[in-house]
Protein backbone atom coordinates (compact mmCIF):
# COMPACT_ATOMS: atom_id res chain seq x y z
CA UNK A 1 0.00 0.00 0.00
CA UNK A 2 1.50 3.27 -1.01
CA UNK A 3 1.67 6.12 1.38
CA UNK A 4 -0.35 8.91 -0.04
CA UNK A 5 0.07 12.35 1.36
CA UNK A 6 -2.47 15.08 1.00
CA UNK A 7 -0.22 16.90 -1.42
CA UNK A 8 0.42 14.23 -4.02
CA UNK A 9 -3.20 13.34 -4.65
CA UNK A 10 -5.30 16.37 -5.47
CA UNK A 11 -8.65 15.70 -3.93
CA UNK A 12 -11.65 17.90 -3.88
CA UNK A 13 -12.72 18.88 -0.43
CA UNK A 14 -16.39 19.64 -0.84
CA UNK A 15 -16.46 21.51 2.43
CA UNK A 16 -13.98 24.11 1.22
CA UNK A 17 -15.71 26.88 -0.71
CA UNK A 18 -14.56 28.44 -3.95
CA UNK A 19 -14.20 32.17 -4.11
CA UNK A 20 -17.04 34.08 -5.70
CA UNK A 21 -17.45 37.79 -6.35
CA UNK A 22 -20.69 39.64 -5.71
CA UNK A 23 -21.23 41.42 -9.01
CA UNK A 24 -24.55 43.01 -8.29
CA UNK A 25 -26.91 43.39 -5.36
CA UNK A 26 -30.59 43.94 -6.10
CA UNK A 27 -33.02 45.12 -3.44
CA UNK A 28 -36.15 43.01 -3.67
CA UNK A 29 -37.95 44.04 -0.49
CA UNK A 30 -36.84 45.83 2.68
CA UNK A 31 -35.49 42.54 4.00
CA UNK A 32 -34.70 40.55 0.86
CA UNK A 33 -31.77 41.16 -1.43
CA UNK A 34 -30.63 39.22 -4.46
CA UNK A 35 -26.91 38.65 -4.82
CA UNK A 36 -25.47 38.00 -8.27
CA UNK A 37 -22.29 35.97 -7.91
CA UNK A 38 -19.55 35.10 -10.42
CA UNK A 39 -16.13 33.58 -10.03
CA UNK A 40 -13.17 36.02 -9.98
CA UNK A 41 -12.55 34.92 -13.60
CA UNK A 42 -16.07 36.03 -14.50
CA UNK A 43 -17.55 32.58 -14.86
CA UNK A 44 -20.61 30.91 -13.44
CA UNK A 45 -19.57 29.33 -10.10
CA UNK A 46 -21.55 26.16 -10.80
CA UNK A 47 -24.53 25.03 -12.83
CA UNK A 48 -27.57 24.38 -10.70
CA UNK A 49 -30.76 22.60 -11.63
CA UNK A 50 -33.98 24.33 -10.55
CA UNK A 51 -34.48 23.88 -6.83
CA UNK A 52 -30.88 23.05 -6.05
CA UNK A 53 -28.99 24.75 -3.28
CA UNK A 54 -25.74 26.59 -2.81
CA UNK A 55 -23.66 27.14 0.29
CA UNK A 56 -22.89 30.81 0.55
CA UNK A 57 -20.45 32.17 3.08
CA UNK A 58 -18.42 34.97 4.46
CA UNK A 59 -15.75 32.80 6.07
CA UNK A 60 -15.16 35.26 8.87
CA UNK A 61 -18.84 35.27 9.76
CA UNK A 62 -20.60 32.09 8.80
CA UNK A 63 -22.01 29.94 6.10
CA UNK A 64 -25.54 29.00 5.18
CA UNK A 65 -27.49 27.20 2.53
CA UNK A 66 -29.67 29.16 0.14
CA UNK A 67 -31.55 28.16 -2.94
CA UNK A 68 -30.27 29.35 -6.28
CA UNK A 69 -33.10 31.41 -7.68
CA UNK A 70 -31.70 32.03 -11.14
CA UNK A 71 -28.54 31.72 -13.16
CA UNK A 72 -27.04 33.14 -16.32
CA UNK A 73 -24.02 32.32 -18.45
CA UNK A 74 -21.63 33.87 -15.97
CA UNK A 75 -23.47 34.16 -12.71
CA UNK A 76 -25.85 32.63 -10.23
CA UNK A 77 -28.43 34.55 -8.23
CA UNK A 78 -29.25 33.92 -4.60
CA UNK A 79 -32.04 35.78 -2.85
CA UNK A 80 -31.60 36.10 0.85
CA UNK A 81 -33.95 37.26 3.55
CA UNK A 82 -32.45 39.01 6.51
CA UNK A 83 -33.36 37.72 9.93
CA UNK A 84 -32.72 40.06 12.80
CA UNK A 85 -31.25 37.30 14.92
CA UNK A 86 -29.39 35.81 11.98
CA UNK A 87 -25.79 36.99 12.20
CA UNK A 88 -24.82 35.90 8.69
CA UNK A 89 -27.83 37.29 6.86
CA UNK A 90 -27.42 40.65 8.60
CA UNK A 91 -23.80 40.89 7.50
CA UNK A 92 -24.61 39.73 3.98
CA UNK A 93 -27.19 42.47 3.71
CA UNK A 94 -24.67 45.07 4.80
CA UNK A 95 -22.05 44.18 2.21
CA UNK A 96 -21.28 45.97 -1.03
CA UNK A 97 -20.73 44.94 -4.63
CA UNK A 98 -17.27 43.60 -5.33
CA UNK A 99 -17.14 41.67 -2.07
CA UNK A 100 -15.52 38.27 -2.34
CA UNK A 101 -17.48 35.48 -0.75
CA UNK A 102 -17.25 31.72 -0.40
CA UNK A 103 -19.49 29.64 -2.58
CA UNK A 104 -19.97 25.90 -2.96
CA UNK A 105 -22.56 23.67 -4.53
CA UNK A 106 -24.81 22.72 -6.18
CA UNK A 107 -26.40 20.56 -3.53
CA UNK A 108 -29.65 18.68 -3.22
CA UNK A 109 -31.87 16.96 -5.72
CA UNK A 110 -33.69 19.88 -7.36
CA UNK A 111 -37.14 19.71 -8.89
CA UNK A 112 -37.92 16.58 -10.92
CA UNK A 113 -38.10 18.40 -14.27
CA UNK A 114 -39.16 15.37 -16.27
CA UNK A 115 -42.15 14.91 -14.04
CA UNK A 116 -43.28 18.46 -14.79
CA UNK A 117 -42.91 18.15 -18.56
CA UNK A 118 -46.08 18.36 -20.63
CA UNK A 119 -48.22 19.19 -17.61
CA UNK A 120 -50.20 22.24 -16.53
CA UNK A 121 -48.38 23.49 -13.48
CA UNK A 122 -49.45 25.52 -10.48
CA UNK A 123 -46.70 27.25 -8.53
CA UNK A 124 -47.62 28.27 -5.00
CA UNK A 125 -45.23 30.42 -3.01
CA UNK A 126 -45.20 32.76 -0.05
CA UNK A 127 -42.59 35.36 0.89
CA UNK A 128 -39.01 34.35 0.22
CA UNK A 129 -40.36 30.89 -0.69
CA UNK A 130 -40.65 32.23 -4.23
CA UNK A 131 -36.85 32.06 -4.57
CA UNK A 132 -36.59 28.29 -5.14
CA UNK A 133 -39.88 28.12 -7.05
CA UNK A 134 -38.71 30.94 -9.29
CA UNK A 135 -35.79 28.84 -10.51
CA UNK A 136 -38.32 26.31 -11.74
CA UNK A 137 -40.65 28.96 -13.20
CA UNK A 138 -37.76 30.49 -15.13
CA UNK A 139 -36.70 27.05 -16.35
CA UNK A 140 -40.24 26.38 -17.62
CA UNK A 141 -40.33 29.75 -19.33
CA UNK A 142 -36.94 29.20 -20.98
CA UNK A 143 -38.22 25.88 -22.29
CA UNK A 144 -41.77 27.10 -22.73
CA UNK A 145 -42.87 24.50 -25.28
CA UNK A 146 -42.06 21.60 -22.94
CA UNK A 147 -44.67 22.61 -20.36
CA UNK A 148 -48.41 23.25 -20.28
CA UNK A 149 -50.19 26.16 -18.66
CA UNK A 150 -48.30 27.94 -15.87
CA UNK A 151 -50.32 29.33 -12.96
CA UNK A 152 -48.34 31.27 -10.40
CA UNK A 153 -49.96 32.02 -7.05
CA UNK A 154 -47.86 34.15 -4.76
CA UNK A 155 -48.41 36.01 -1.54
CA UNK A 156 -46.53 38.31 0.79
CA UNK A 157 -47.24 39.93 4.12
CA UNK A 158 -47.61 43.36 2.49
CA UNK A 159 -47.00 44.81 -0.93
CA UNK A 160 -43.53 45.88 0.14
CA UNK A 161 -42.71 42.31 1.09
CA UNK A 162 -43.39 40.92 -2.38
CA UNK A 163 -40.18 39.61 -3.94
CA UNK A 164 -39.26 39.79 -7.63
CA UNK A 165 -41.88 42.45 -8.41
CA UNK A 166 -40.59 42.99 -11.94
CA UNK A 167 -41.13 39.33 -12.74
CA UNK A 168 -44.51 39.18 -11.05
CA UNK A 169 -46.05 42.25 -12.59
CA UNK A 170 -44.18 42.77 -15.85
CA UNK A 171 -42.19 39.84 -17.16
CA UNK A 172 -44.19 36.78 -16.28
CA UNK A 173 -47.71 37.95 -17.24
CA UNK A 174 -46.35 38.50 -20.78
CA UNK A 175 -45.30 34.88 -21.14
CA UNK A 176 -47.80 32.90 -23.27
CA UNK A 177 -50.32 30.73 -21.46
CA UNK A 178 -49.26 32.01 -18.04
CA UNK A 179 -51.34 33.43 -15.21
CA UNK A 180 -49.91 35.28 -12.24
CA UNK A 181 -52.01 35.78 -9.10
CA UNK A 182 -50.64 37.88 -6.27
CA UNK A 183 -52.08 38.41 -2.82
CA UNK A 184 -51.07 40.17 0.37
CA UNK A 185 -52.07 39.24 3.90
CA UNK A 186 -53.78 42.45 5.02
CA UNK A 187 -55.40 45.38 3.18
CA UNK A 188 -52.97 48.16 2.46
CA UNK A 189 -53.16 51.62 0.97
CA UNK A 190 -52.13 51.62 -2.66
CA UNK A 191 -52.91 47.94 -3.17
CA UNK A 192 -55.92 47.09 -5.28
CA UNK A 193 -55.05 43.46 -5.78
CA UNK A 194 -56.24 40.44 -3.84
CA UNK A 195 -56.04 40.41 -0.05
CA UNK A 196 -55.92 37.16 1.91
CA UNK A 197 -53.70 34.24 2.80
CA UNK A 198 -52.14 32.08 0.13
CA UNK A 199 -53.83 28.75 0.97
CA UNK A 200 -57.28 30.38 0.79
CA UNK A 201 -56.28 32.10 -2.42
CA UNK A 202 -55.31 28.76 -3.94
CA UNK A 203 -58.72 27.40 -3.03
CA UNK A 204 -60.38 30.46 -4.54
CA UNK A 205 -58.51 30.29 -7.83
CA UNK A 206 -58.79 26.51 -8.00
CA UNK A 207 -56.26 26.28 -10.80
CA UNK A 208 -56.75 23.45 -13.18
CA UNK A 209 -53.29 21.95 -12.92
CA UNK A 210 -51.83 18.46 -13.05
CA UNK A 211 -48.81 19.16 -10.90
CA UNK A 212 -47.94 21.65 -8.18
CA UNK A 213 -44.74 23.15 -6.79
CA UNK A 214 -45.09 24.73 -3.35
CA UNK A 215 -42.68 26.67 -1.18
CA UNK A 216 -43.08 29.12 1.64
CA UNK A 217 -43.02 29.33 5.39
CA UNK A 218 -43.80 26.03 7.17
CA UNK A 219 -47.37 27.08 7.93
CA UNK A 220 -48.08 27.85 4.27
CA UNK A 221 -46.79 24.46 3.19
CA UNK A 222 -48.73 22.73 5.91
CA UNK A 223 -52.02 24.38 4.93
CA UNK A 224 -51.58 24.34 1.16
CA UNK A 225 -50.68 20.69 0.64
CA UNK A 226 -54.09 19.36 1.80
CA UNK A 227 -55.88 21.89 -0.42
CA UNK A 228 -53.98 20.63 -3.43
CA UNK A 229 -54.88 17.08 -2.46
CA UNK A 230 -58.53 18.04 -2.26
CA UNK A 231 -58.26 19.52 -5.74
CA UNK A 232 -57.49 16.03 -6.91
CA UNK A 233 -53.74 16.21 -7.42
CA UNK A 234 -52.07 12.85 -6.77
CA UNK A 235 -49.56 12.87 -3.90
CA UNK A 236 -46.70 12.17 -6.32
CA UNK A 237 -47.45 15.41 -8.14
CA UNK A 238 -47.62 17.70 -5.14
CA UNK A 239 -44.04 18.86 -4.88
CA UNK A 240 -42.61 21.03 -2.16
CA UNK A 241 -39.22 22.09 -0.94
CA UNK A 242 -38.23 21.93 2.69
CA UNK A 243 -35.64 23.74 4.67
CA UNK A 244 -33.86 22.68 7.83
CA UNK A 245 -30.72 23.87 9.51
CA UNK A 246 -27.73 22.71 7.49
CA UNK A 247 -24.01 22.95 7.97
CA UNK A 248 -22.20 20.73 5.51
CA UNK A 249 -24.66 20.41 2.64
CA UNK A 250 -23.41 16.95 1.74
CA UNK A 251 -25.13 14.62 4.17
CA UNK A 252 -22.39 14.31 6.75
CA UNK A 253 -22.93 16.79 9.55
CA UNK A 254 -26.19 15.11 10.45
CA UNK A 255 -28.61 17.81 11.51
CA UNK A 256 -30.94 18.11 8.54
CA UNK A 257 -32.30 14.58 8.72
CA UNK A 258 -35.97 13.74 8.57
CA UNK A 259 -35.97 10.06 9.39
CA UNK A 260 -33.27 8.53 7.22
CA UNK A 261 -33.42 11.30 4.60
CA UNK A 262 -31.08 14.24 4.62
CA UNK A 263 -32.73 17.37 3.31
CA UNK A 264 -29.43 18.58 1.86
CA UNK A 265 -28.80 15.35 0.00
CA UNK A 266 -32.12 13.62 -0.64
CA UNK A 267 -34.08 16.88 -0.68
CA UNK A 268 -34.80 19.72 -0.47
CA UNK A 269 -37.51 18.80 -2.97
CA UNK A 270 -39.95 16.18 -1.77
CA UNK A 271 -43.32 15.05 -3.07
CA UNK A 272 -46.32 14.67 -0.79
CA UNK A 273 -46.02 10.94 -1.43
CA UNK A 274 -42.49 10.92 -0.02
CA UNK A 275 -43.48 13.08 2.93
CA UNK A 276 -46.27 10.66 3.77
CA UNK A 277 -43.60 8.05 4.51
CA UNK A 278 -41.42 10.33 6.56
CA UNK A 279 -41.67 11.29 10.23
CA UNK A 280 -43.35 14.63 10.75
CA UNK A 281 -40.24 16.24 12.10
CA UNK A 282 -39.70 19.33 9.94
Amino acid sequence: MKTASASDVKRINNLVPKIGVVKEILDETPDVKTFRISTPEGERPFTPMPGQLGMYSLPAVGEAMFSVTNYGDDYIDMSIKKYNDGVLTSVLHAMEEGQEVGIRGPYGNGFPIDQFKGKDIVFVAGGIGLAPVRSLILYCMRNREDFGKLTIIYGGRSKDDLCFKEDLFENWPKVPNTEVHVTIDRPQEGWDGHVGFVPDFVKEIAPNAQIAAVCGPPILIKLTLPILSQMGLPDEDIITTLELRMKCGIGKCGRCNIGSCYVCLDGPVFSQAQLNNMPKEY
Partner: protein
Amino acid sequence: MKTIEKAKLDSLFAQLAQNYSLLVPVDYNGLTQFAPYSQVQEGVSQLYLDGNVTVSPKTAYLPQSEAMYKFRAQGKKLAIEEMAGLDKQQVLFGVRHCDTKAIQCLDKVFLDEKFEDPQYKNKREQNIVFSLACNNPKATCFCESMGLDRAHAEASVADVQVYDFGDSFGFEAISDKGKACLDKLTGLGETASKLPDQKPQTLKFDVAGLPEKLKDMFEDPIWDEYSFKCLNCGTCSYICPTCHCFDINNKIRGEVGVKLRTWDSCMFNEYTLMAGGHQPRAGKKERVRNRFLHKLQYFNEKHDMSLCVGCGRCVAKCPVNVDITKFIRQVIG
Protein backbone atom coordinates in the same frame (compact mmCIF):
# COMPACT_ATOMS: atom_id res chain seq x y z
CA MET B 1 1.74 -15.39 14.77
CA LYS B 2 4.42 -12.97 15.92
CA THR B 3 4.68 -12.36 19.63
CA ILE B 4 6.26 -10.07 22.14
CA GLU B 5 6.45 -10.42 25.89
CA LYS B 6 4.52 -7.76 27.72
CA ALA B 7 7.66 -6.90 29.64
CA LYS B 8 9.21 -5.85 26.33
CA LEU B 9 6.24 -3.75 25.23
CA ASP B 10 8.24 -0.56 25.74
CA SER B 11 10.82 -1.68 23.20
CA LEU B 12 8.04 -2.45 20.73
CA PHE B 13 6.59 1.01 21.27
CA ALA B 14 10.02 2.56 20.92
CA GLN B 15 10.45 0.84 17.54
CA LEU B 16 7.03 1.91 16.37
CA ALA B 17 7.60 5.45 17.56
CA GLN B 18 10.75 5.60 15.48
CA ASN B 19 8.99 4.98 12.22
CA TYR B 20 5.53 6.30 12.91
CA SER B 21 3.55 8.68 15.04
CA LEU B 22 2.31 6.39 17.79
CA LEU B 23 -0.98 6.70 19.60
CA VAL B 24 -1.74 4.46 22.56
CA PRO B 25 -4.68 4.20 24.95
CA VAL B 26 -3.87 6.09 28.13
CA ASP B 27 -5.33 7.15 31.40
CA TYR B 28 -4.80 10.91 31.65
CA ASN B 29 -5.81 12.09 35.10
CA GLY B 30 -8.87 9.87 35.14
CA LEU B 31 -9.88 10.27 31.51
CA THR B 32 -9.06 7.35 29.25
CA GLN B 33 -8.38 8.20 25.62
CA PHE B 34 -5.86 7.76 22.82
CA ALA B 35 -2.82 9.98 23.15
CA PRO B 36 0.73 10.21 21.78
CA TYR B 37 3.03 7.60 23.30
CA SER B 38 5.32 10.43 24.38
CA GLN B 39 2.78 11.20 27.13
CA VAL B 40 3.46 7.77 28.60
CA GLN B 41 7.20 8.22 28.30
CA GLU B 42 7.00 11.56 30.05
CA GLY B 43 4.83 10.09 32.78
CA VAL B 44 1.97 12.49 32.03
CA SER B 45 -0.32 9.55 31.35
CA GLN B 46 -0.34 5.84 32.08
CA LEU B 47 -0.84 3.16 29.46
CA TYR B 48 -4.40 1.83 29.77
CA LEU B 49 -5.14 -1.61 28.35
CA ASP B 50 -7.97 -2.75 30.63
CA GLY B 51 -10.74 -2.19 28.11
CA ASN B 52 -12.05 0.34 25.67
CA VAL B 53 -11.22 3.94 26.46
CA THR B 54 -13.83 6.55 27.35
CA VAL B 55 -13.13 8.87 24.43
CA SER B 56 -13.08 6.56 21.44
CA PRO B 57 -10.29 6.53 18.84
CA LYS B 58 -12.62 8.25 16.38
CA THR B 59 -10.57 11.26 17.53
CA ALA B 60 -7.80 10.00 15.23
CA TYR B 61 -10.19 10.20 12.27
CA LEU B 62 -12.57 12.96 13.20
CA PRO B 63 -10.92 15.08 15.89
CA GLN B 64 -13.18 16.96 18.25
CA SER B 65 -11.93 20.16 16.73
CA GLU B 66 -10.22 20.13 13.33
CA ALA B 67 -9.19 22.90 10.98
CA MET B 68 -10.78 22.43 7.55
CA TYR B 69 -9.26 25.42 5.83
CA LYS B 70 -7.76 28.77 6.64
CA PHE B 71 -8.64 32.11 5.19
CA ARG B 72 -7.77 35.74 5.07
CA ALA B 73 -10.61 38.21 4.79
CA GLN B 74 -9.19 41.62 4.04
CA GLY B 75 -11.56 44.35 2.96
CA LYS B 76 -13.50 42.93 0.06
CA LYS B 77 -10.83 40.36 -0.72
CA LEU B 78 -10.76 36.79 0.38
CA ALA B 79 -8.11 34.08 0.23
CA ILE B 80 -8.76 30.46 1.11
CA GLU B 81 -6.12 27.79 1.67
CA GLU B 82 -6.71 24.13 2.43
CA MET B 83 -4.96 22.48 5.35
CA ALA B 84 -2.24 19.93 4.85
CA GLY B 85 -3.10 16.38 5.89
CA LEU B 86 -1.04 13.96 7.95
CA ASP B 87 2.17 13.32 6.09
CA LYS B 88 3.43 10.66 8.47
CA GLN B 89 1.84 7.30 9.07
CA GLN B 90 0.33 6.93 12.48
CA VAL B 91 -0.01 3.73 14.47
CA LEU B 92 -2.99 3.33 16.76
CA PHE B 93 -2.16 0.59 19.20
CA GLY B 94 -4.87 -1.28 21.07
CA VAL B 95 -8.00 -0.19 19.24
CA ARG B 96 -10.84 -2.51 20.33
CA HIS B 97 -12.98 -4.40 17.85
CA CYS B 98 -16.00 -2.23 18.57
CA ASP B 99 -14.01 0.80 17.55
CA THR B 100 -12.80 -0.79 14.32
CA LYS B 101 -16.41 -1.55 13.48
CA ALA B 102 -17.26 2.05 14.31
CA ILE B 103 -14.68 3.28 11.81
CA GLN B 104 -16.36 1.13 9.21
CA CYS B 105 -19.59 3.00 10.01
CA LEU B 106 -17.79 6.31 9.61
CA ASP B 107 -16.46 5.09 6.24
CA LYS B 108 -20.03 4.84 5.00
CA VAL B 109 -20.54 8.49 5.81
CA PHE B 110 -17.20 10.05 4.95
CA LEU B 111 -16.10 7.86 2.06
CA ASP B 112 -19.34 7.84 0.10
CA GLU B 113 -18.87 7.99 -3.65
CA LYS B 114 -20.49 11.32 -4.29
CA PHE B 115 -18.90 13.44 -1.60
CA GLU B 116 -15.79 11.74 -0.32
CA ASP B 117 -14.16 13.60 2.53
CA PRO B 118 -10.45 14.02 1.79
CA GLN B 119 -9.46 14.96 5.32
CA TYR B 120 -11.04 11.81 6.68
CA LYS B 121 -9.62 9.73 3.86
CA ASN B 122 -6.14 11.04 4.50
CA LYS B 123 -6.33 9.88 8.11
CA ARG B 124 -7.87 6.62 7.07
CA GLU B 125 -4.90 5.97 4.80
CA GLN B 126 -2.26 7.16 7.21
CA ASN B 127 -3.55 5.38 10.29
CA ILE B 128 -2.32 1.86 10.95
CA VAL B 129 -4.68 0.15 13.35
CA PHE B 130 -3.42 -2.49 15.80
CA SER B 131 -6.70 -3.94 16.98
CA LEU B 132 -6.70 -5.74 20.30
CA ALA B 133 -9.21 -8.51 20.93
CA CYS B 134 -10.91 -8.25 24.32
CA ASN B 135 -10.51 -11.24 26.62
CA ASN B 136 -12.28 -9.60 29.53
CA PRO B 137 -15.27 -7.60 28.39
CA LYS B 138 -16.58 -4.89 30.66
CA ALA B 139 -19.95 -5.38 32.26
CA THR B 140 -21.36 -2.75 29.91
CA CYS B 141 -20.01 -4.34 26.71
CA PHE B 142 -22.53 -5.83 24.28
CA CYS B 143 -20.72 -5.95 20.94
CA GLU B 144 -21.55 -9.61 20.41
CA SER B 145 -25.22 -8.80 20.49
CA MET B 146 -24.64 -6.19 17.82
CA GLY B 147 -23.08 -8.85 15.62
CA LEU B 148 -19.38 -8.23 16.17
CA ASP B 149 -16.75 -10.93 16.00
CA ARG B 150 -14.79 -10.93 19.23
CA ALA B 151 -11.99 -13.01 17.74
CA HIS B 152 -11.48 -10.89 14.63
CA ALA B 153 -11.46 -7.14 14.19
CA GLU B 154 -13.25 -5.47 11.30
CA ALA B 155 -10.93 -6.39 8.44
CA SER B 156 -11.59 -3.30 6.34
CA VAL B 157 -10.32 -1.14 9.17
CA ALA B 158 -7.81 -3.07 11.28
CA ASP B 159 -4.33 -3.59 9.87
CA VAL B 160 -2.89 -5.80 12.57
CA GLN B 161 -4.84 -8.12 14.83
CA VAL B 162 -3.48 -8.24 18.36
CA TYR B 163 -4.23 -10.96 20.91
CA ASP B 164 -3.53 -10.80 24.60
CA PHE B 165 -1.93 -14.04 25.85
CA GLY B 166 -1.56 -12.96 29.46
CA ASP B 167 2.16 -12.34 29.58
CA SER B 168 2.62 -11.66 25.87
CA PHE B 169 0.89 -10.12 22.89
CA GLY B 170 0.44 -11.92 19.57
CA PHE B 171 0.29 -10.08 16.24
CA GLU B 172 -1.21 -11.10 12.94
CA ALA B 173 -1.13 -8.83 9.91
CA ILE B 174 -4.52 -8.26 8.30
CA SER B 175 -3.69 -5.72 5.61
CA ASP B 176 -0.63 -5.03 3.49
CA LYS B 177 -0.13 -1.84 5.45
CA GLY B 178 -0.14 -3.88 8.65
CA LYS B 179 2.24 -6.44 7.22
CA ALA B 180 4.70 -3.79 6.11
CA CYS B 181 4.58 -2.36 9.60
CA LEU B 182 5.09 -5.70 11.33
CA ASP B 183 7.94 -6.60 8.96
CA LYS B 184 9.88 -3.57 10.14
CA LEU B 185 9.77 -4.72 13.76
CA THR B 186 12.64 -6.70 15.22
CA GLY B 187 12.90 -8.81 18.33
CA LEU B 188 9.53 -10.47 17.89
CA GLY B 189 9.03 -14.12 18.70
CA GLU B 190 7.01 -16.57 16.67
CA THR B 191 4.31 -18.89 17.94
CA ALA B 192 1.47 -20.92 16.58
CA SER B 193 -0.45 -20.78 19.79
CA LYS B 194 -4.21 -20.95 19.70
CA LEU B 195 -6.28 -17.87 20.32
CA PRO B 196 -6.73 -16.81 23.92
CA ASP B 197 -9.90 -17.70 25.80
CA GLN B 198 -12.45 -14.96 25.89
CA LYS B 199 -14.79 -14.51 28.82
CA PRO B 200 -18.38 -14.34 27.68
CA GLN B 201 -20.20 -11.04 27.69
CA THR B 202 -22.85 -10.72 30.36
CA LEU B 203 -24.98 -8.22 28.48
CA LYS B 204 -26.50 -10.41 25.75
CA PHE B 205 -29.70 -10.00 23.81
CA ASP B 206 -31.30 -10.53 20.45
CA VAL B 207 -31.53 -7.69 17.94
CA ALA B 208 -33.12 -9.54 15.01
CA GLY B 209 -35.72 -7.45 13.20
CA LEU B 210 -35.00 -4.34 15.26
CA PRO B 211 -35.00 -1.75 12.42
CA GLU B 212 -38.26 -3.12 11.04
CA LYS B 213 -39.90 -3.05 14.45
CA LEU B 214 -38.77 0.52 15.08
CA LYS B 215 -40.28 1.69 11.81
CA ASP B 216 -43.74 1.63 13.31
CA MET B 217 -42.72 3.02 16.66
CA PHE B 218 -42.20 6.68 15.88
CA GLU B 219 -45.21 7.70 17.95
CA ASP B 220 -44.81 5.00 20.60
CA PRO B 221 -45.15 6.02 24.29
CA ILE B 222 -41.81 4.29 24.93
CA TRP B 223 -40.06 7.53 23.93
CA ASP B 224 -41.59 9.40 26.86
CA GLU B 225 -40.28 6.78 29.21
CA TYR B 226 -36.71 6.87 27.86
CA SER B 227 -36.47 10.58 27.26
CA PHE B 228 -37.86 11.63 30.65
CA LYS B 229 -34.58 11.24 32.47
CA CYS B 230 -32.37 12.45 29.62
CA LEU B 231 -30.52 15.67 30.43
CA ASN B 232 -29.85 16.58 26.80
CA CYS B 233 -26.14 16.73 27.50
CA GLY B 234 -23.71 15.61 24.86
CA THR B 235 -21.93 12.87 26.80
CA CYS B 236 -23.37 9.97 24.81
CA SER B 237 -22.67 11.59 21.47
CA TYR B 238 -19.18 12.69 22.34
CA ILE B 239 -17.99 9.37 23.68
CA CYS B 240 -19.86 7.32 21.06
CA PRO B 241 -17.44 5.84 18.53
CA THR B 242 -19.91 6.21 15.66
CA CYS B 243 -21.50 9.61 16.40
CA HIS B 244 -20.06 11.76 13.68
CA CYS B 245 -22.25 14.86 13.54
CA PHE B 246 -20.25 18.03 13.37
CA ASP B 247 -20.65 21.74 13.40
CA ILE B 248 -18.66 24.22 11.33
CA ASN B 249 -17.21 27.19 13.15
CA ASN B 250 -14.71 29.97 12.86
CA LYS B 251 -11.69 30.86 14.83
CA ILE B 252 -10.55 34.31 13.85
CA ARG B 253 -7.63 36.49 14.84
CA GLY B 254 -7.74 39.77 12.98
CA GLU B 255 -7.93 39.20 9.24
CA VAL B 256 -6.87 35.59 9.43
CA GLY B 257 -8.99 32.69 10.52
CA VAL B 258 -9.54 28.97 10.30
CA LYS B 259 -12.75 27.11 9.67
CA LEU B 260 -13.12 24.45 12.28
CA ARG B 261 -15.08 21.29 12.12
CA THR B 262 -16.11 20.52 15.70
CA TRP B 263 -18.13 17.69 17.14
CA ASP B 264 -21.77 18.46 17.65
CA SER B 265 -24.53 16.57 19.37
CA CYS B 266 -28.13 16.01 18.35
CA MET B 267 -28.94 16.50 22.03
CA PHE B 268 -28.19 20.23 21.87
CA ASN B 269 -30.79 22.86 21.16
CA GLU B 270 -28.64 24.70 18.63
CA TYR B 271 -28.14 21.59 16.54
CA THR B 272 -31.39 21.97 14.61
CA LEU B 273 -32.43 25.51 15.59
CA MET B 274 -32.93 27.66 12.51
CA ALA B 275 -32.46 31.39 12.08
CA GLY B 276 -35.96 32.69 12.53
CA GLY B 277 -36.60 30.36 15.45
CA HIS B 278 -38.04 27.23 13.82
CA GLN B 279 -37.05 24.16 15.86
CA PRO B 280 -38.04 20.81 14.36
CA ARG B 281 -36.76 18.81 17.34
CA ALA B 282 -37.68 20.97 20.27
CA GLY B 283 -37.61 18.64 23.24
CA LYS B 284 -35.94 15.72 24.92
CA LYS B 285 -38.33 13.24 23.39
CA GLU B 286 -37.63 14.28 19.81
CA ARG B 287 -33.90 14.31 20.41
CA VAL B 288 -33.61 10.98 22.20
CA ARG B 289 -35.85 9.42 19.59
CA ASN B 290 -33.76 10.81 16.77
CA ARG B 291 -30.54 9.56 18.32
CA PHE B 292 -31.80 6.07 19.03
CA LEU B 293 -33.50 5.75 15.66
CA HIS B 294 -30.43 7.03 13.85
CA LYS B 295 -28.37 4.35 15.58
CA LEU B 296 -30.83 1.54 15.17
CA GLN B 297 -33.07 2.29 12.18
CA TYR B 298 -32.15 5.22 9.94
CA PHE B 299 -28.54 4.15 9.40
CA ASN B 300 -29.72 0.63 8.66
CA GLU B 301 -32.07 1.95 6.02
CA LYS B 302 -29.32 3.91 4.34
CA HIS B 303 -26.31 1.67 4.76
CA ASP B 304 -27.63 -1.70 5.80
CA MET B 305 -25.73 -1.77 9.06
CA SER B 306 -26.35 -0.70 12.60
CA LEU B 307 -24.79 2.51 13.84
CA CYS B 308 -24.54 1.04 17.32
CA VAL B 309 -21.54 -1.24 17.70
CA GLY B 310 -22.11 -2.29 21.29
CA CYS B 311 -19.10 -0.62 22.89
CA GLY B 312 -21.17 0.15 25.97
CA ARG B 313 -19.71 3.61 26.51
CA CYS B 314 -23.05 5.37 26.72
CA VAL B 315 -24.39 2.70 29.06
CA ALA B 316 -21.43 3.27 31.35
CA LYS B 317 -21.14 7.02 31.12
CA CYS B 318 -24.65 8.41 30.68
CA PRO B 319 -25.13 10.59 33.78
CA VAL B 320 -28.68 9.31 34.20
CA ASN B 321 -28.30 5.83 32.75
CA VAL B 322 -30.45 6.18 29.64
CA ASP B 323 -29.72 2.63 28.59
CA ILE B 324 -29.86 1.76 24.90
CA THR B 325 -29.58 -1.97 25.67
CA LYS B 326 -32.61 -1.86 27.91
CA PHE B 327 -34.43 -0.02 25.14
CA ILE B 328 -33.50 -2.64 22.54
CA ARG B 329 -34.56 -5.46 24.83
CA GLN B 330 -37.85 -3.76 25.50
CA VAL B 331 -38.52 -3.19 21.79
CA ILE B 332 -37.64 -6.74 20.84
CA GLY B 333 -39.82 -7.91 23.71
